[in-house]
């Protein structure tokens, strides 16, 4: 049921795949995607549906050899909780939904292509704010707060500008680590009251994969072994790339940087 219209089986599956794509591309965990798709199909009288979701693909099928299955490959994922909230609103309010099938499909595809966003400036401001506050919370002074504010904001701006070029995520993170290291060290050189470790610790907080790691362990405990493996491995990879970028900047600064500032 979509409002008052009954959906055919094909329409149900198409909508289910669109819902799954929006959820998975915006950082929902796999069990939530599976739950939502299954619930949507059940409420449209498809009780034999089987869904298999990993962080990189969605398969929707049933247990017969007659009907085709839908397969979708997901390559780029990001975090956008607004989209998850909107899709959640849609799947819980199917009875009072006032768009027909085509309009709903357009709506979901539109969410995928033009997600609601705070924009570049607020994103960078958020990163700067949380970097500064973390530098203070983890033991820094107000000088460190200011330096981490600048570092976090500039690094996020750099990452957002780079994200259009679709580098591999590994090197994007390495660039983030490099930028954090260089800006933090420059701040230390300008203002002698800053502590290097505190600034770096605060400023890398928005780029660290701690959330991915925790979510990976959460997937393990929920029984999603494949998804748990993927996410933990991803988190370790991101941690390595950040550490490589930071180590490179520290090494470069140690070798050449002091001569520039002296």
């Amino acid at each position, binding site marked *: 049921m979509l409002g008052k219209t009954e959906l055919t089986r094909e329409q149900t599956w198409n909508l289910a795949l669109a819902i799954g794509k929006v959820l998975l591309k915006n950082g*929902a965990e796999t069990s939530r995607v599976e739950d939502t798709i299954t619930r949507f199909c059940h409420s449209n009288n498809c009780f034999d549906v089987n869904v298999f979701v990993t962080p990189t693909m969605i398969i929707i099928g049933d247990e017969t050899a007659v009907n085709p299955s839908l397969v979708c490959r997901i390559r780029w994922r990001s975090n956008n909780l607004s989209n998850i909230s909107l899709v959640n609103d849609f799947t819980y309010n199917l009875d009072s939904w006032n768009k027909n099938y085509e309009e709903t499909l357009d709506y979901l595809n539109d969410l995928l292509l033009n997600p609601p966003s705070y924009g570049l400036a607020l994103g960078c401001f*958020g990163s700067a704010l949380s970097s500064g506050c973390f530098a203070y919370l983890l033991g820094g002074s107000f000088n460190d707060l200011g330096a981490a504010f600048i570092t976090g904001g500039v690094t996020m701006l750099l990452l957002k500008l780079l994200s259009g070029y679709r580098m591999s995520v590994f090197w994007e993170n390495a660039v983030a680590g490099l930028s954090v290291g260089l800006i933090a060290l420059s701040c230390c050189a300008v203002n002698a009251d800053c502590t290097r470790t505190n600034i770096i610790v605060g400023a890398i907080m928005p780029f660290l994969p701690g959330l991915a*790691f*925790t979510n990976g362990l959460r997937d393990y405990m929920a029984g999603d072994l494949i998804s748990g493996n993927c996410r933990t491995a991803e988190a370790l990879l991101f941690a390595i790339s950040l550490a490589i970028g930071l180590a490179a900047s520290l090494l470069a600064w140690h070798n050449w940087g002091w001569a520039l500032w002296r």
Partner: protein
Amino acid sequence: MEIDYLSAFFFAFLATCGFGFILQVPLKSLQTSGIIGAVGWVVFIHIARTLGHSTAYANFTATIIIALMSEFAARVSKQPVNIYVIPGIIPLVPGLGMYQGMTQIISGHYEYGMNILMHAGSDAGAIAMGMMLVTSIFRMFKITNEQGKVLREKMKKRQ
């Protein structure tokens, strides 16, 4: 050690709200998730620093409180729980430990690096355990209802 809880609360609130902008939390639930994250952080530093227990235990307790608050906030505002839980646990997640461990391993101190990584792993495990505990308890009632509905439909079809 004397800890200024008020400033800790304030800065944790700002940090969580900042993360809310990065994670695109809807504007109307931004303050709520900020408060949840700040309460979690205050509980964490109270247990870990003032009372001096292990960080894994502190993380577990703080996460249970965060998850409970998030479940209630989600029920009240009819939003998915993720919107409150994910920004809420941000101050707790052991990203720092993972980074430090990797840095030590890169610079050749394998033993010390693995030590830090295992600590980070146990912290992350404690957070995940706390979240799964609350989620499972809240889900138990819901799923028994839903599965009952589905089973009844299937039985009707067979007859």
